[in-house]
């Protein structure tokens, strides 16, 4: 007789457990932890958004919607995208509402990949990219970005890796590094994508959280609109993670192919959440501006405190993470995170969870409230100081 394990598909068996999930379970066992480990805003969705959800329930809007999402929402998305990304998409044929950007990534990969085809992605990166490629029967090829380049993606590195690749998966601003691509770097990257005939799947979920000037999308560069699937959603900018609303914008044939999978696997995103999303996008301007300014204060504060403690945080131009170089402590990123949790009850995420290129770094999220960040920063400083006192040779090496 077969064991339960024997029924599993080989490509699923090969996917390792998520490093974040492992670490989460350790943190869960300890009470009273200040967490800089969260990948979401620490506030609830704006009240107007929550109220819209209640209104929609009161009025009995509890049925399915169109597979693509309500036209009302797609119209709002179209107007919003045109405003902040500078690109127009036709609501009826070029926009698909999904269950978070996570679903949209899965759909995009499954819609375009034949088994064994190669997807380039930059790393350290969001935890789902490599597994999603594997699950779509693709072959992932990581391009390592480096701390000394601010973890930005170099167009030359893409050109060198592009031989035989079909897709380039991008995420700027980047989780976990906060890196942003702009101006000429983006021009150069777009040029390589056209020359090498790459399809780009661009996850721009942190677009609103760009601190040094407005967000720039690769889709605005010459020749890119027809070869880009632009992914965005409401989770981060509107603190709506639990509503699970994302969307894909792309030329009609690509959206149509993604739709084929979406309609059979998911049918439609939650009706209630779609109603809430309409309200969020209508009141967007004030919400996102306020959030950005508040994050900026927290970012500047935490970065300064960590620098004073002798650590080397990145200078993130986007998202709400600092990727902090802890190599000078002599610890691996996992040891650092575990000991910090043990001794000072502060949770940060070991960089290795975001791929081998994250080793030596930890991710500190500054989406936590400022007064909590103050305490956390104090504790991290104390922890690093103790480490250095215990290891005089490291203090000297600084």
């Amino acid at each position: 007789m077969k064991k339960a394990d024997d029924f599993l598909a080989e490509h699923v068996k090969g996917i390792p457990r998520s490093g974040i999930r492992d670490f989460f379970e350790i943190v869960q066992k300890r009470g009273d932890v200040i967490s800089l480990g969260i990948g979401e805003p620490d506030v609830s969705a704006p009240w107007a958004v929550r109220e819209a959800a209640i209104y929609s329930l009161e009025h009995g809007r509890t049925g399915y919607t169109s597979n693509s999402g309500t036209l009302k929402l797609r119209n709002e998305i179209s107007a919003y995208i045109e405003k902040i990304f500078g690109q127009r998409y036709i609501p009826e044929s070029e926009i698909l509402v999904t269950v978070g950007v996570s679903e949209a990534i899965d759909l995009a990969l499954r819609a375009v990949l034949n088994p064994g085809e190669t997807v380039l992605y930059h790393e350290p990166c969001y935890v789902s990219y490599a597994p999603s490629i594997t699950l779509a029967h693709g072959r992932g090829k990581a391009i390592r970005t480096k701390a000394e380049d601010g973890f930005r993606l170099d167009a030359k590195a893409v050109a060198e890796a592009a031989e035989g690749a079909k897709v380039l998966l991008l995420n700027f601003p980047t989780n976990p590094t906060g890196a942003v691509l702009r101006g000429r770097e983006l021009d150069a990257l777009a040029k390589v994508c056209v020359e090498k005939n790459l399809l780009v799947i661009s996850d721009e979920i942190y677009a609103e959280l760009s601190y040094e000037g407005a967000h720039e999308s690769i889709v605005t560069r010459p020749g890119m609109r027809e070869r880009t699937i632009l992914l965005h959603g409401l989770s981060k900018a509107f603190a709506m993670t639990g509503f699970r609303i994302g969307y894909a914008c792309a030329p009609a044939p690509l959206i149509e192919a993604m739709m084929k999978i979406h309609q059979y696997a998911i049918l439609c995103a939650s009706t209630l959440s779609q109603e809430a999303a309409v309200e969020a996008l209508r009141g967007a301007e004030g919400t996102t501006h306020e959030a950005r300014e508040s994050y900026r204060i927290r970012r500047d504060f935490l970065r300064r405190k960590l620098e004073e403690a002798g650590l080397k945080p990145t200078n993130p131009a986007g998202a709400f993470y600092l990727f902090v170089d802890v190599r000078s402590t002599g610890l691996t990123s996992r040891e650092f995170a575990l000991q910090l949790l043990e001794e000072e009850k502060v949770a940060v995420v070991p960089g290795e969870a975001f791929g081998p290129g994250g080793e030596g770094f930890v991710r500190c999220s500054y989406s936590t409230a400022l007064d909590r960040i103050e305490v956390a920063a104090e504790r991290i400083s104390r922890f690093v100081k103790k480490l250095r006192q215990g290891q005089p040779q490291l203090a000297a090496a600084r």
Partner: protein
Amino acid sequence: MDPLLQILKERGRLSSGELAQLTGKTEKEVEKALRQYEADRVILGYQAILDSDKTGHGGVRAVIEVKITPEREGGFDRIAARVARYPEVVSCQLMSGGYDLLIVVEGPDLKRVAGFVSEKLSTIQGVISTATHFQLKTYKEAGVLFLQDDKAERLSVSP
């Protein structure tokens, strides 16, 4: 807005030292900036927001709609200033719509607030009429909710 003001708006109780830490300025720079803001009357004051049901010194609060006659020179300003100067008046605003001034009055008990309205407010020259509404319960004040949201369950570590 200056991050210093943004932080103070939410957390008015922070010391100059803490503000310096948060904004990356020196303590001296923060104090200088604060003095300037105070001198320019950008910062008008620092107050705690109290739940008077809990302090036990609640007293009585009334919102009063006041109709007044605008004057040839100065419009509503002179009478409004005259009303606003009473210490019983907590806030005083000129409104559009069916009345002119909306004022909030506080007193130790109903009788004193009623007395203020009938003896002082109504008798000011130019005041045509008043409509007094006594406050029953506070749900939100100065942007602060008096009811507490349930603590939302949030994962301590998430991707």
